[in-house]
C-alpha cells in the first residue's frame, strides 16, 4: 500500500500535513504527537520582520468552528531560521514555510532569506483576512494574484504553493491565475470572513471586529472549492477546511486534493493528524486501494 504523494518533486510519506497557524512551528505539539509521522509540517506564517499582530481578544468559538484574528503575529524570519528550522530538522518530515507579507517586496525578502535554508517548500499566504494593509487583496483579484505569483516565483529557489482565499466570486479564476503565474501547487481554503457579536455587551467579540472562520462548519464550502480548483488547473491541490477525521480527509482527496491539511481540529484533539493518517490507511485497506493516488479526484 502506497501513501506517498509527490508535490512539485517533493515526496511526502503521506498526504497529511498541518495547516499554517494551527501548529506553531511544531514545538508545542511535539510533546503530544510524533511529528515524524506527518507528511509535512506547515509553519505559522513568517514575515521579513517581527509582526505584533492584532489586539486581544483574537479568537472565539462559533457554532462548529472558530474565528481568529491573530493578525499574523510572528517573530520574523531571522528568529525562524535560528530557532524553528533547526527544531523541525530533527524530525523525519518535510518543512513547508508559510510566508506572509504586506507587499510583494516583503514576500520576496522573506523568500530570499529562506532560499539557502534546509526547508522544502514555501506556502505563500496571499489570502489572510486579518491584515489591514491589503494582503487579502492579493488573493481576491486574479490579475494581481498572477503578478504576485510571478514575482515570488522569480525569487524562490524552492517550489511555491499559493494559498487561496475562499472569499471570492470565482475560485476557478483564482486557481487559474495562480497556475498562470507559475505556482507549483495551490492550497485552499484559507479562512472565510466571519463576525460574532456579543449581544449582551453589544460589542464585537474580536477586537478586530472580523475574524477568519475555520473548523468543521466550513467543510462543505471547502470541499466544493477544492473540487472546482482542482478541475480548473493541472498543478496539484492541497485541500483543507474543517478536517476532523480520516473521512473528512478522504472527502477532500476524492474531490481532487493530492494532500490535505488539518487546522483548527488540532486544538480540539492534538492527535487529529495521527488519527487521520491511520484512518486513511484503514480506508485504503478496507477498499483495497493500492496507491493513494487512485483516490485523488475519484468522485463521480
Amino acid at each position, binding site marked *: 500500500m502506497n501513501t506517498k504523494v509527490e508535490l512539485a518533486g517533493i515526496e511526502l510519506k503521506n498526504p497529511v500535513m498541518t495547516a499554517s497557524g494551527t*501548529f506553531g512551528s511544531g514545538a*508545542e505539539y511535539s510533546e*503530544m504527537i510524533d511529528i515524524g509521522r506527518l507528511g509535512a509540517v506547515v509553519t505559522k506564517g513568517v514575515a521579513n520582520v517581527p509582526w505584533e499582530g492584532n489586539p486581544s481578544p483574537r479568537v472565539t468559538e462559533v457554532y*462548529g468552528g*472558530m474565528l481568529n484574528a491573530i493578525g499574523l503575529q510572528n*517573530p520574523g524570519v531571522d528568529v525562524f531560521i535560528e530557532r524553528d528550522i533547526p527544531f523541525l530538522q530533527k524530525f523525519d518530515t518535510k518543512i513547508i514555510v508559510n510566508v506572509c507579507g504586506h507587499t510583494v517586496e516583503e514576500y520576496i525578502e522573506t523568500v530570499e532569506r529562506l532560499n539557502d535554508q534546509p526547508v522544502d517548500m514555501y506556502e505563500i499566504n496571499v489570502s489572510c483576512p486579518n491584515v489591514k494593509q491589503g494582503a487579502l487583496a492579493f488573493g481576491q483579484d486574479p490579475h494581481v494574484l498572477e503578478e504576485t505569483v510571478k514575482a515570488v516565483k522569480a525569487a524562490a529557489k524552492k517550489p511555491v504553493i499559493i494559498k487561496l482565499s475562499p472569499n471570492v466570486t470565482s475560485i476557478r479564476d483564482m486557481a487559474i491565475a495562480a497556475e498562470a503565474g507559475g505556482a507549483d501547487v495551490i492550497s485552499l481554503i484559507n479562512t472565510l470572513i466571519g463576525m460574532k457579536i456579543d449581544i449582551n455587551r453589544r460589542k464585537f467579540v474580536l477586537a478586530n471586529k472580523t475574524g477568519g472562520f475555520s473548523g468543521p462548519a466550513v467543510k462543505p464550502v471547502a470541499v466544493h472549492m477544492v473540487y472546482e480548483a482542482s478541475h480548473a488547473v493541472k498543478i496539484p491541490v492541497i485541500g483543507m477546511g474543517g478536517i476532523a477525521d480520516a473521512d473528512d480527509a478522504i472527502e477532500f482527496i476524492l474531490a481532487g486534493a493530492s494532500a490535505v491539511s488539518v487546522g483548527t481540529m488540532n*486544538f480540539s484533539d*492534538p*492527535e487529529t493528524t495521527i488519527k487521520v493518517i491511520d484512518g486513511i490507511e484503514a480506508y485504503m485497506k478496507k477498499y483495497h486501494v493500492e496507491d493513494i493516488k487512485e483516490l485523488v479526484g475519484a468522485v463521480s
Partner: protein
Amino acid sequence: MKRRLRSVITEHKELAPHIFSLKLKTEMSAEAVPGQFIGIYPKDGARILMRPISICDSDAETGELRMVYRAAGKGTAEISGYGAGESLDILGMLGNGYDLEAVKEKKVILLGGGIGIPPMLYSAKRLKEQGTEVTAVLGYADSNTFLKEDFEKYCTVQIASMEGSVGTKGTVIDAMNENGTEGDVIFACGPMPMLKAVKSYAADHGMQAFISLEERMACGVGACLGCVVKTREVDHHTHVKNTRICVEGPVFNAEDVDI
C-alpha cells in the same frame, strides 16, 4: 507532558447558583501546580474548543483534580449537566502556575474575586504545607460565600462582599484597607478591574503582585497565539511585546504585563 486525556467525574455539585464544584479522576492530578489550569472539552459537536478552568485543588492520593467554575455560557452549562461516573476529556496541565518556592519565607496575601476565588484555594493549601504565612482575602458578590470553609482550613480568611451583607462592604482592596492586611507578596485572581486595582495597590505599597490573567483561548498550548497579553518588554518567545497567557501565564508578575 501535555496531553488530551479522558477523565471520570467522581463528584459534581452546585455550590451556589450557577457555581459548580467538579472532581475528576485523572493521572494529571499528580502534576498540578497551583495557578495552572486544564481545558475541559464540551461534547456537543457545536462546540469544538476546550474551556479553560483553573485547578482549585488536587489530591495526588485519590488521583482527583477539583475545579470550581461558573456556568457562564453554553459550554460550561453543558459541562454542568454531566454527573458522577460520566467522562470528560481534558487537556492539561496547562500554564505556569505560581512559584511557591520563591515566596516560602514571605508573608503571602491571596486575593480572590468572584470566580477568581477557587484557584486560590490550592495555593493556600500548598503554601500552608510549606509553612508559608498566608492570609486570604475573598471578594464575593453577596452572602453566598462558597469555599470559605475550605480556605479556613489553611489560612486566615477575610471577606468582602459587594452587597455588604458579609464582611467588608466593597472589594478585596476595601477589605485589605479596612483590615490593614499585611504581607510581602500578593497572589491575585479575579475580574480585570480588580487585577488593575491590585497592580496599583501593590505598586503603591511596594509589594510584589502575581496576577492570574484570562483571555479567550483556542489551543491552550502556545501554538495559535490566540491568547496574548501586551508586555512591557519584548517577549523571549514571540520576539514582540506580547506574551502567551496559556504558556508563559496565566500567572504574571503584574509589573511585566500591560493590563
